[in-house]
């Protein structure tokens, strides 16, 4: 179902639940993987994705119809991810390195991770990046999103995003070279 049709269903009281079900089915995987790459752990990603779609449902009336539906959902998901990681640090008074350590251990021990050594090494290199830079890198590198789209989602200029991505690639390659 096209976004335009989905929005029509969502704006009608009688068809809202059906429309929302279609929306979830359409975007759940993209949102899940977007979240999962940030929080690493499946259980955390599962909780967050559910919260994100509940938030989407509750805020449907605030959605501006001239905006793109998927960038709006991505924006909510992105904010939820960054808030989750930020709260995680505040809750346990953890410095950045400790959260990185926890996510590193999950990469090594989670039953829901299965990759070649070099892939896991790349993920560990990504954990060295600040959250927002990692987010930008994931959207550009893994999701092949355009800078314009990332700019809308993150509310950051295209120039700043290009610079952020360029620096992220350099840091990752340095890590891969050293390790």
């Amino acid at each position, binding site marked *: 179902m096209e976004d335009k049709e989905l929005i029509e269903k969502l704006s009608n009281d009688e068809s809202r*639940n059906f429309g929302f079900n279609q929306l979830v089915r359409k975007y759940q995987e993209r949102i899940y993987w977007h979240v999962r790459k940030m929080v690493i752990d499946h259980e955390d990603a599962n909780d967050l994705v559910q919260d994100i779609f*509940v938030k989407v449902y509750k805020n449907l009336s605030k959605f501006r119809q001239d905006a793109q539906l998927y960038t709006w959902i991505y924006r909510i998901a992105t904010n939820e991810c960054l808030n989750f990681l930020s709260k995680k640090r505040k809750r346990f008074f953890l410095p950045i390195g400790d959260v990185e350590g926890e996510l590193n251990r999950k990469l090594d021990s989670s039953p829901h991770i299965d*990759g070649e050594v*070099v892939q896991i090494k790349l993920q560990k290199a990504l954990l060295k990046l600040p959250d927002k830079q990692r987010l930008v890198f994931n959207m550009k590198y893994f999701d092949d999103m355009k800078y314009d789209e990332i700019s809308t989602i993150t509310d950051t200029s295209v120039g700043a995003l290009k610079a952020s991505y360029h620096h992220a690639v350099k840091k990752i390659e340095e890590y891969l070279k050293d390790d």
Partner: protein
Amino acid sequence: MKLEDIKKQNIHKVPDKYFDELPLKIQSKIAEESKPKNWVVTYGLRYALPAVLLIVITVYVIIKPSTTASPEQLLAQVSTEELISYLEASDITTEEIVESLELSAIDFEFYENETELVDELDMSEDELDALINDFETEDIL
């Protein structure tokens, strides 16, 4: 090693049928959160609970001493007549009562201030002597 040398691959996995079941879980969560919340449980208790606990503890502390009366206090509530009737009806001898007494420092203070003890019994000395004589006579008999 360059980034472009690494094959793009998703190393994360999900449990079987995860995405088949996720929409239902989300719908359930929305239904759960849409239920009207009980104000008493959600807000009332959250804010009132500390105050309620404080009141309960205060009341308990105030009431507790009066509810845990000592044996002496309980015995003081029994009238002299009832005590005499009880002693008359029982098989306890005066010697047995004396033998069972364990005299402590507090008991000695009572002996030193004997007048007060007699006043508390609310009996004249004559009545007391008559009572003692009765018991002694019964014991002899």
